[in-house]
């Protein structure tokens, strides 16, 4: 416990804030020493003069006080609502961003899937065109070329002449398709040469 000076102890006692034991000792002291009694009386009088300061009720009419109370109250309540809205927004923001991310992700996946599908469709269409061209040529050759030439074509189709090192004409594969087309065109040239040669096509 910190030791207080006489004036401090008198002030605390006059304000009713001094503990019981300290109060007892102070009373003993001021009863013993007249100067201490004088100090105590002075302090009490000084503190009492403070009580003469008017309270708010004496300075403002009840109506004004009520107005001020309402103004302060409304301001605080409005701000409280604003704070609550901010809090809700703050909580909802991550959910909103997560939702947006999800939607963006789904959209991106759809775009990628559509792109892959389009590439596959184009490849299939190109392969189909090659197959159609081969079929058309085969039909043309079978109907318009002599028998020896037809036989050669059959051999070609069997892969004996046009496939070197086991390369097959693969119309379904985009790479095989272009490779096969090259082989096919070579074979066509060889058929032309065989037809035009004086020996004629090999039997």
């Amino acid at each position: 416990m910190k030791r207080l000076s006489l004036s401090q102890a008198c002030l605390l006692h006059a304000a009713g804030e001094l503990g019981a034991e300290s109060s007892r000792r102070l009373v003993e002291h001021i009863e013993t020493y007249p100067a201490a009694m004088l100090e105590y009386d002075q302090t009490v009088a000084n503190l009492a003069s403070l009580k003469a300061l008017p309270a708010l009720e004496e300075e403002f009419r009840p109506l004004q006080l009520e107005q001020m109370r309402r103004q302060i109250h409304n301001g605080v309540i409005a701000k409280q609502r604003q704070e609550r809205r901010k809090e809700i927004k703050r909580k909802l923001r991550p959910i909103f961003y997560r939702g947006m991310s999800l939607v963006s992700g789904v959209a991106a996946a759809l775009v990628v899937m559509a792109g892959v599908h389009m590439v596959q469709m184009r490849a299939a269409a190109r392969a189909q065109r090659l197959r159609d061209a081969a079929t058309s040529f085969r039909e043309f050759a079978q109907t318009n070329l002599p028998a020896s030439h037809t036989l050669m074509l059959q051999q070609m189709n069997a892969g004996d002449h046009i496939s070197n090192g086991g390369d097959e004409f693969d119309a379904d594969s985009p790479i095989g398709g272009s490779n096969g087309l090259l082989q096919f065109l070579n074979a066509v040239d060889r058929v032309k040469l065989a037809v035009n040669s004086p020996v004629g096509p090999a039997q």
Partner: protein
Amino acid sequence: MALDSQALSALIERCRAGDKAAWDEFIGLYWQRLFAYAYKATHDRDLASDLVQETLLRVVQKLQRYTEEGKFEAWLFRIIVNLVRDKARANARRQTRSTLVDAESGSELTDQMPGRETVDDAEHREETEKLFGALERLPELDRQVLLLRHYGCLSFKEIATVTGCPLGTVLARAHRALAKMRVMMEVDHETS
């Protein structure tokens, strides 16, 4: 007027839970003491009202993190004391006393006192003005202690907590301020 610590804790808990009635009660309980202090410290009714609002709003914002240790009022008044001090710093030139004008009627407060003034009333008013004059002439920190004591209804221990000064310093300031006021009042009496 003040609640005991248990009732205050319960009220704070209800306010934390967002109970509107509790907030009404809380504001009703403290606004007048806060306003009285702010008004006497700033001499501006509107500014005092704004400062009280600001204080209560800060309580709203900070109450969730506040831990009750029996120093709630000191905490509350520390907020408004800091706000008043910041405002005083911002308005470096403080007016001695602004004229109180009713916002609605535009009439001065001194005209609002109903009825005719008697001789006793006049003497009382004169005494009050002298007292205010003496209070105004005190150094800032001494005045703050007296305002917190009289208008904030705080104990000297609470004032020590609010101002962050040792109890002895607060008591010394209060004692010195009261003695000075008394001397000034006596001088005023003699001159008048």
